[in-house]
């Protein structure tokens, strides 16, 4: 588990209307997706505009960032993608927060 940070990207500037399924569909286009953590605000029940997406290898991460950072717009908002550096990546423990 100590290496999962190295295979995870942070995706920002996500329009809250974007669903987890859509993120999955988008990122699987360029690399196999292991896990998506797409937190919702607990009170407002609204996505918070960012996600952590885990891939299989560091090579995938490099490629995904180069290929997709500032490349794709969803609802006219350009996705920002960078390496996940945080060790305190918020893992939602209260069950699944998908649709």
């Amino acid at each position, binding site marked *: 588990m100590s290496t999962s940070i190295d295979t995870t990207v942070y995706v920002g500037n996500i*329009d809250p*209307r*974007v669903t*987890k*399924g*859509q993120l*999955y*569909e*988008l990122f*699987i*286009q*360029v*690399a*196999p997706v292991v896990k998506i953590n797409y937190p919702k605000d607990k009170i407002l029940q609204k996505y918070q505009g960012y996600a952590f997406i885990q*891939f*299989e*290898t560091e*090579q*995938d991460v490099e*490629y995904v960032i*180069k*290929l*997709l950072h500032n*490349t*794709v*717009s*969803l*609802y*006219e908002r350009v996705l920002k993608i960078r390496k996940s550096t945080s060790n305190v990546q918020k893992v939602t423990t209260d069950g*699944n927060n*998908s*649709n």
Partner: protein
Amino acid sequence: ESEWRKVKRSIRPGKISKNLREIMGLKEGQLPPWCHKMQKLGIPPSYPNMKVAGLNWDIQFMKDDIYGKVPKSNDKKSKKNE
């Protein structure tokens, strides 16, 4: 959860649903924006056999929601269209 699994099954690289195309602002017959970058960066490292229309696949193969494909050569499932 089972619905999520169902969604996952219909998704594959090289194919973008109408719904995702819409929110990306992709027009009919338009390649996804990362395809041009693939010219420089190459095919995805985890999909070494991927075919992308206009890149290493005839642009005529682009149709509806399909712009590329990943041949299932090392998949357990049959090797159709190979």
